[in-house]
């Protein structure tokens, strides 16, 4: 009998196994049964001042205007409304948007007026975007992100410092992307910051990004799916108003914007006045129906009737 001569897999085979196993092109996930035993890495300070320096801003502007914006417009059908609110607005502000997709940050940064885009920075989950140096550098350079500790307690000093330096901040107060396309509870961090610094919050409703590129996809669906970005009137903190009340007003304003996206400004305004704005948290029905409704996406406005059927 002969001895076993087991063929050792080559380097390429090893690399293939590892790249698939650890999802090199995507984020690796703990197995479901390991989730209760999973611990998030210790928070690490990742410096991002360099990403707000002049050379980095130049690189970012070229990348956004010359690369990302055309790409977003090639892969999706973007419609933007409400940009006129920036005409008589002075920064810094906090831009608060609903969050259903990785497309959201790209949509915001590529639809903001250039003057605002140059002076905006994005709060990003420290455990997600800053867990590896290469990911941290990439997101800080391209999206002007700074880390937010979403599993810790208390608010980081960084956003306050940025506001004091005149930077506007994009925040997604739900803390993570929606699993079903509907809005989740707003955390009060953005409202607390606005109150402390006496600056307005600009609600931004993004519709269709869940249908275009939901969780689990790293590229939009083919067929240039429609996405709508609607900027709302600034919500300013009132004297004597507490953080929770302000947070509630921002949440309501965003719900009204989403309502406006499916109806029109006046109808939405009337419903808001009579407190009949549909909740942005979606209907209380079976989960599949919530997902089903979200995956339909918004209608493409102004689409012409087909001449030939």
């Amino acid at each position, binding site marked *: 009998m002969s001895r*076993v001569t*087991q063929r050792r897999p080559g380097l390429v085979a090893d690399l293939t196994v*590892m790249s698939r196993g650890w999802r090199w092109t995507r984020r690796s996930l703990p197995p*479901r049964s*390991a989730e209760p035993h999973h611990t998030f890495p210790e928070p690490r300070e990742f410096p991002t001042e360099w990403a707000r320096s002049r050379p980095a801003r130049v690189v970012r502007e070229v990348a956004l205007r010359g690369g990302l914006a055309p790409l977003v417009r090639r892969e999706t059908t973007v419609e933007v409304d409400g940009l006129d609110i920036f005409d008589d607005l002075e920064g810094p502000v906090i831009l608060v948007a609903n969050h259903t997709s990785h497309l959201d940050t790209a949509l915001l940064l590529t639809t903001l007026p250039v003057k605002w885009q140059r002076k905006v920075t994005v709060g990003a989950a420290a455990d997600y975007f800053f867990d*590896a140096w290469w990911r941290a550098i990439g997101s800080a350079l391209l999206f002007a992100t700074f880390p937010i500790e979403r599993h810790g307690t208390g608010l980081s000093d960084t956003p306050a410092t940025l506001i004091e330096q005149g930077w506007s901040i994009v925040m997604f107060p739900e803390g993570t992307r929606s699993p079903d396309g509907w809005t989740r509870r707003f955390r009060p961090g953005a409202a607390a910051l606005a109150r402390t610094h006496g600056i307005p919050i600009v609600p931004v409703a993004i519709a269709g990004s869940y249908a275009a590129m939901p969780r689990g996809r790293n590229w939009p669906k083919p067929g240039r799916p429609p996405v709508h970005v609607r900027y709302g009137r600034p919500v300013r903190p009132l004297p004597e108003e507490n953080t929770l009340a302000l947070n509630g007003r921002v949440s309501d304003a965003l719900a009204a914007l989403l309502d406006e996206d499916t109806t029109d400004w006046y109808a939405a305004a009337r419903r808001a006045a009579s407190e009949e704005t549909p909740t942005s948290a979606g209907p209380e029905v079976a989960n599949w129906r919530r997902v089903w409704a979200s995956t339909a996406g918004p209608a493409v406005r102004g689409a012409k009737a087909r001449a030939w059927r």
Partner: protein
Amino acid sequence: MTRPGFVLTVDERTPPLLLHSGESFRLQQFPLGTRVIYPAESLPGLPDVDQAIDQALLHPIDSDPLPALLRAGMKLTIAFDDLSLPLPQMRKPDVRQRILERVLQYAADAGVDDVELIVATALHRRMTADEVKSIVGERVFRSFWPDQLYNFDAEDRVNLAHLGKTDRDEDVEISKRAAESDLLVYVNVNLVAMDGGWKSTAIGLASYNSLRHHHNAHTMIHSRSFMDPHKSELHSSAWRMGRVLSEHVKVFQIETTLNNDAFPSQYGFLTKREWEWSLRDQAMFLGTKRGLDVMPAKSRRKLFQQMEAPYGITGVTAGAVEPVHEKTLERVHQQQLVEVNGQTDVLVMGLPYLCPYNVNSVMNPILAACLGLGYLFNMYRGKPLVREGGVLILHHPVPWEFSTLHHPSYVDFFDEVLAESTDPKVIGPKFEQQYASDPWYTHLYRTSHAYHGVHPFYMWYWCAHALDHLGQVIWVGGDRRAVARMGMRSASTFADALELARDTVGSSPSITYQHAPPHILSVVR
């Protein structure tokens, strides 16, 4: 915070899992639904080990403090575990050195002149001077070697003492020096629940005449398992012998427990859960594996054998043997117990490069079988992880390779005994005496560095419970000739092994992978 061990269910998110296979390791994708038993993370080590040693010696359990037991003119013997513990060897200074130095300091302070230190090798090979020095440290070695510090010799008839018989007619025959001392201090390293207790003295310092009563197929089959001392025939026998021993000599037992830091930090990926591997861990795995693949066998073995574990000491306890050992077991359980619901049809293991009997040596096929079927199979409390009639799949190259220096009788055992029968119950009565009394093996055991002639039989007896319980044993990547000689089957790949297992457990068996090392003691409900 230390995370406990747990049972993972493989899903589509699970990356390929690390499997040890001798002097290498591999990544293996397991079928969806496979259960994987992960060990607990390392418990924190004691911040001040020397203080803990002093505390144990001065406040022992059910005994006077050590200084009170020492006096000028007494005969003091200190015995300690040999190089088979811990695995891998621990980073220096070895905890035995620290304890020996403290004990000897107390003896010096009390004016004890007659001190001897014995390496409790039983029928293991004699350790070399360098190996002894690596355990006891420079000071102790320089002061006592070779006349007052030496390896135990189980064939030195003049220096053995027969202390009587147990109530089950078992001979108790141990080192005369130890038996006739005013105080016998034993220094133990407790890696797994099998170690320690009366096993230290009643087995570590015993002759073949004593060992044969429990190192046999019958005892092993009825030790379920020998990692659960309260349900182990082996331990029951050792405890009976220990009680006879305690009628003749006072034993002061010092036991230590270790955490799960079994590999140096650069090989951190070996103990990390795979989905938590960073890019650095992945690169280290790939680099190490590719390096090992192209490395000459000799260099590869040297690299592994030189590895020293940064074990933390989780406890030091001293005093009367039995209460000390209960405390030790508690600590071992705290580190190693993992609860598992139900048995499995197929149990999968990856065997590492090291077992207690190939330190600085070769892991021959018998030792590989002993590691898988003897030690790792028995790492349970309650019921075995695999059901009766189930299949055990082991990953190891099982090289047909023997060290003629360390394992001379293994060569003949493999060629002659296993060629005739692989049934431990058959080979014992027929061949054991012949190997146990062979003058050439005895000569090599006493003068060279060979394991005793009967030792391969003991290794095969360790497998007896598994061989009796299992329906089939399949080796992945093993030398076909060597595996066939042991009466088992070999497969080129894990997929082939599962295919072979179908004959025994059907086409959709439950599969469990025991992700060790570090050690896991499964509590199977």
